[in-house]
Each structure stands twice: as C-alpha cells, then as structure tokens.
C-alpha cells in the first residue's frame, strides 16, 4: 500500500485527477459569471426574432428549459459534482432530455478524426521536411520551405479556410465546396466499408487540409532549429567519424534526438485535439465538438459547456501523462524508474 502511494504512476494519476477537478471547478464558476444565462438568451431570441412579448417568451422558456436561474450557484455545483461522481454529465439545459454525454459521443469522434489526422499528417510531414531543411541547410529546399513555412505559420487557420473556400472553391471552382461540407454524405450507410471510409476522408479533406496548412509551418520551423542544434552535437560528428551511412545518421542520430524537444509540443497539441477548432468546424459545417461548444456557449448551455470543458481537461491531462511516458521511451535519460548513473 505504501509502495502504491509512493509510486510514480499513482502520484501522476492523483495529480491528474486534482488538475481535472480544479479545471472543472474553475470553469463551473467562470461560465456562470459570463453575462447572460440560458433562459435570458432564449428570451432575447424569442423577442428579437419572433416579436414575442417579454412575458410570453419568459413563460415559454421557463417550461422549455431545464434551468432555474434562481438556484444558488453553490447548490448547482454540489448537484453537478454528485452527478459527476456517478459519471453523469447531466442533461443539456437548452434541450431537455438530451444527455450531455450523448452529445459529446455524437460530436467527439468527428473532431478526433479530423484534428487527429491533421496532427498526424502535419507533425510527420513537418518533422520530415524540417529535418531535411536543416540537414541540407542553405539548399533550395531549405530556402523555399523556410519562406513557405514562415508565411503559412503567420496566417491564422480561419483565413486559410476562407481563402480555400473563396479562391479554390468559389472563384476557381477547383473544390466542390458544398459537396465536401459536413462529416459524411447523407445516405451512405456508416460502416467499415471502403465507400464509407472514402466518403469520410473526402469530407474531412477541407478541415484537415486547413489544419495541416495552419500548423505544418510551426512544426517545420521548430524541427529545423532543433535539428540544427542537434547537428552541432559531438555525437553526430563522432557517428560520422565512425563511418555510419547517412540514412542511419539521419534517422537514429539526428532525427530522433532533434525530435525530443518537439514531443512536449506534440503532447500539448494532442491534448487539444478534442477541442477542435470551432471556427474551422463552423466554416466547413463539420459536425465536431468545437462547433458544438461554440453553439453551447452562444446559448449559455452550462451543462453542455461544462461537459465539453471536462472532456478537454481530461484529454489534456491524459495526453500529458502519455507524453511523459512517450518522452521516456524516446529519451532514456528521463525513463521512468530508470536508475541514475554512478557519479
């Protein structure tokens, strides 16, 4: 038991749980400090859009919504916590009887798929190109890609998305924008079929391409500078002196060491995969969690927001733990439980 309490894993898990709780509590109160509440937002909408009277709107909202603005916040918090302990994320405030968990399960896979795929592509491609840029520094590839990376790195993702739509989609008609919107084509039976998977990829193309463009510059530049500093290390010269072939040098000696500093960044990125990018998902009508979060924020749907924030917090914490493990696997110097040298 004592050993368990002292063990690294146990401590990490406890720390993670505490972090998640802290984030959860913080967001719980923070989102309730935001101006407006779900009922008032809906009332405003009814009045503004449908010319209802304030009373009319209020009466209707009171019964339609699952929210009592007069309940003390702390009481709400206690309720929320006690539900959470039973793994119940509660129900959407603005859509009675829709469990938050169900919403998250509906939208999360799309975000995981698109952002995850984009991260995978951007990271691996960025790292490869960055490595090559540094290895053949000053060459054509380096010069061209450095300019490309710096420019693309400086453009926000939604601008890239808009350019993609307006230039490639509307003006040049290269991309059938409408056809690519959404997560999948209606009518194609979901399942493990070639047709469905191709359709998924087709629909993920726009967001994934945007994410990749928006992030790959950063990966390339970071990898390049990391590789340059690795190339200056003695063990590279030594390995060269040992007559190792270039390929082995490039992978196990330069690449692997240069990638180490990128792992933390990768972990953070992985953690934020679940959040997705609200703007991109909204622009491309991609049915992801980020878009759903923005909708929930707009409607002040506290429980839905809370649920999504919780999932993000968990994934950030978990991915950081995983990053620790991964880092240990890649860099034996920080390997967990590894004994220190005698010196």
């Amino acid at each position, binding site marked *: 038991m004592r050993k368990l309490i002292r063990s690294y894993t146990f401590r990490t898990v406890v720390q993670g749980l505490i972090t998640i709780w802290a984030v959860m509590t913080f967001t719980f109160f923070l989102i309730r400090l935001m101006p407006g509440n779900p009922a008032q937002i809906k009332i405003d909408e009814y009045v503004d859009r449908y010319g209802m009277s304030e009373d009319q709107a209020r009466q209707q909202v009171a019964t339609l919504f699952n929210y009592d603005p007069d309940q003390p916040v702390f009481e709400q918090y206690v309720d929320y916590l006690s539900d959470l302990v039973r793994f119940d994320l509660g129900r959407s405030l603005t859509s009675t009887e829709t469990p938050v968990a169900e919403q998250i399960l509906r939208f999360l896979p799309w975000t995981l798929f698109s952002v995850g795929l984009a991260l995978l592509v951007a990271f691996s491609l960025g790292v490869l190109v960055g490595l090559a840029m540094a290895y053949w520094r000053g060459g054509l590839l380096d010069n061209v890609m450095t300019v490309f990376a710096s420019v693309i790195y400086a453009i926000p993702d939604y601008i890239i998305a808009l350019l993609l739509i307006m230039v490639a989609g509307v003006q040049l008609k290269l991309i059938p924008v409408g056809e690519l919107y959404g997560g999948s084509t209606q009518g194609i039976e979901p399942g493990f079929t070639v047709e469905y998977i191709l359709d998924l990829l087709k629909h993920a193309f726009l967001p994934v391409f945007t994410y990749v463009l928006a992030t790959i510059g950063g990966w390339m530049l970071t990898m390049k500078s990391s590789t340059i500093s690795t190339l200056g290390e003695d063990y590279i010269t030594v390995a060269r002196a040992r007559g190792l072939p270039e390929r082995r040098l490039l992978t196990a000696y330069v690449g692997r060491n240069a990638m180490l500093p990128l792992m933390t960044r990768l972990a953070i990125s992985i953690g934020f995969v679940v959040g997705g990018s609200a703007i991109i998902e909204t622009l491309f009508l991609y049915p992801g969690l980020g878009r759903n979060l923005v909708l929930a924020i707009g409607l002040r749907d506290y429980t839905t927001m809370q649920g999504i924030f919780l999932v993000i917090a968990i994934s950030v914490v978990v991915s950081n733990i995983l990053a620790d493990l991964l880092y240990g696997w890649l860099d034996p110097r920080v390997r967990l439980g590894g004994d*220190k*040298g*005698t*010196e």
Partner: protein
Amino acid sequence: MSTAQRAPLVELKHVDRFFRKGNATLKVLQDINLNVYPNEILCLVGESGCGKTTTGKIIAGLLNHSGGEVNVQGRPLASYSDRREKAHLRRTFQIVHQDPFASLNPSHTIAKILSFPLLRHKMVKNRTELAARLLELLELVDLTPPQDILNKYPHQLSGGQRQRVSIARALTVQPKLIVADEAVSMVDVSIRIGILKMLLRLKEELDIAIVFITHDLALAKYFAWQGRIAVMYLGRIVEIGRTPDVIGNPAHPYTRALLAAVPEADPDVTRAKEEMPLRSEDIPGLLNIPHGCAFHPRCPFFVPGLCDAEVPKLAVARGFNQEAACAPLELGLPLTTYAG
C-alpha cells in the same frame, strides 16, 4: 604570516548544504568547518562533485547554507539584517568565475562593465574620478595600455585578457576576499601563470584573501605554496593544512591517491611514478554516500569495522603537520593494503 594572528574573515562551523532533487536529498556539503583569514590563500581542491564550488559560493555569500553556522567578520551571518550592512558585505566578498565569456555582458564595452559597479556602489565621486579609477584598475590587472582596452568589447579580447577584466571588475568594489572558482581553467597554459602571479601580487598589494578553487593539484600547489590547501571528497573536507605539508607529505589516502595519479610534465618522473591502485574506480553518487569514511569503498588501506563505521574527524595524526580525517591514521595504525 601566521593565520592565528588575525580574526577570520569568514568562519564556517558545521556547515551543511542540501539540495532537493525530486524526493531525494542531495547532501552536497556536510559538516564543513573552515576559516578564511584576511590576506591568506586557501585552496579548495577535489574532483567534480566534491562540493568545492558550493563551499566557495557559501563563503562568498552567494548561497545560503542549510545547517550549521556562518560567521562573517566575527558576527553570525543572520545578524546582518540591515540593508546597508548587507550591501557592504556583498561588496566585501567577490567571486571570479571560470568562464569570463559567460560572465561578461557581450554587448557592453569594458569601460561600461567596470563603471557599473563603481557607480552603483558610489565608489567614485565624479566622471574624472571614474576615468582615473578605470585606468588604475586595468593597470592593476596588467592590461596595458589601458586606453586600448576600455572601448573594446569582450569578444575583442583574448581569453586571458577577459579573465583579467573579470578580476578587475571584482576589484572595483575594493573587496577583502576573492573567491576564484577555476579562474584559470579555461586559460591557455602559456598565459595562466601570468594571471596567477598577478593575483598573488594583488593579494599583497591590496590585502585581499583569496579562496582558490581548482581541480588541478599542481596548480594549487604552485599558487597556494604560502597558504593552505583543503582537499574535499564527497561533500566533506578530508585533509587540510599548509600547502607544503599536504603536497609533500600527504596524510589522507585520498590525497595520496590524487597525488599519485597526477601526471607531470616530465617524462621520466611521470613514468616512474608509483601507482596507487584503488579498490574501485566508481565514485559513489551524492544520493548514496557510503557510511563512515566516504572514501572507504575505494581506499586501498580500508580497515573493515573501523572505516565504514563512523565518519572520521579531522585531526592531526602522528608524523603530520596537517589535519586529516582518517580513522586508522588518527588511531596511529599503519596504513596497510587491504587484502579482502
């Protein structure tokens, strides 16, 4: 010069210094008893990780101690609560580091580097005095002609010149003690001696005490021939005394091992040196310092049941003038090679 005549500048009594590393505690220094007297030369020697730099920093007031007592000019360090007193104290003790490139701001001229402490501590009254003082300082450290140096940047100077500037900067505030931490390790052999000679001259001219930290025994012997040497091993002083005694007639087995191991710039002498084989070549980590005498697992003269039982005290053994922390020596036992 006798060390007993003047009250010590700095007194370390049973000083410990621990660092936390994760859950573990690194005992970097344990039970250090050491006085630094005015105008003396004290050499701290030992291998990497022995605690010599930490000791130097505690002496210079750059690092707090974890346990024990530090007295400065006869008063406990803790009693210096006044801000002015503290500032004065900080000026009294200066440190010169190994790498002058790292310790000199590369974007400032030498004049600026030297003016800064002079102005901050109001050591000069006006511009004319400042200019005069700058020239004086550079002449003190043999950077002549000084006018050529003043407007240069650190990178325009050679390694030796840079280290001289570092020393000049330490001198700006008229210190009573300079801790020179491996101050000439990065300087070329041909220039080293010049800097050391200059330090010795400054010590005499300006009445400064010098704590000289080095891993190079030959250099320590040369520099501190008139002073004392303290040999450190794994956070403790194992031998301390006048330099000719420690080098000429080493007492502690570790000191002996070190002296036997140092190669000399004389082919015949160095090839004829008698080897002192250690029982182990591994240096224990600070996380698991051996019980008793920390050197016992490697010591060729290990006495089971004695050396690994208690930490030996520093004491003057028969046949020696210096103090050493070795239990068999203290008991007057002959040092015989351990056969077990």
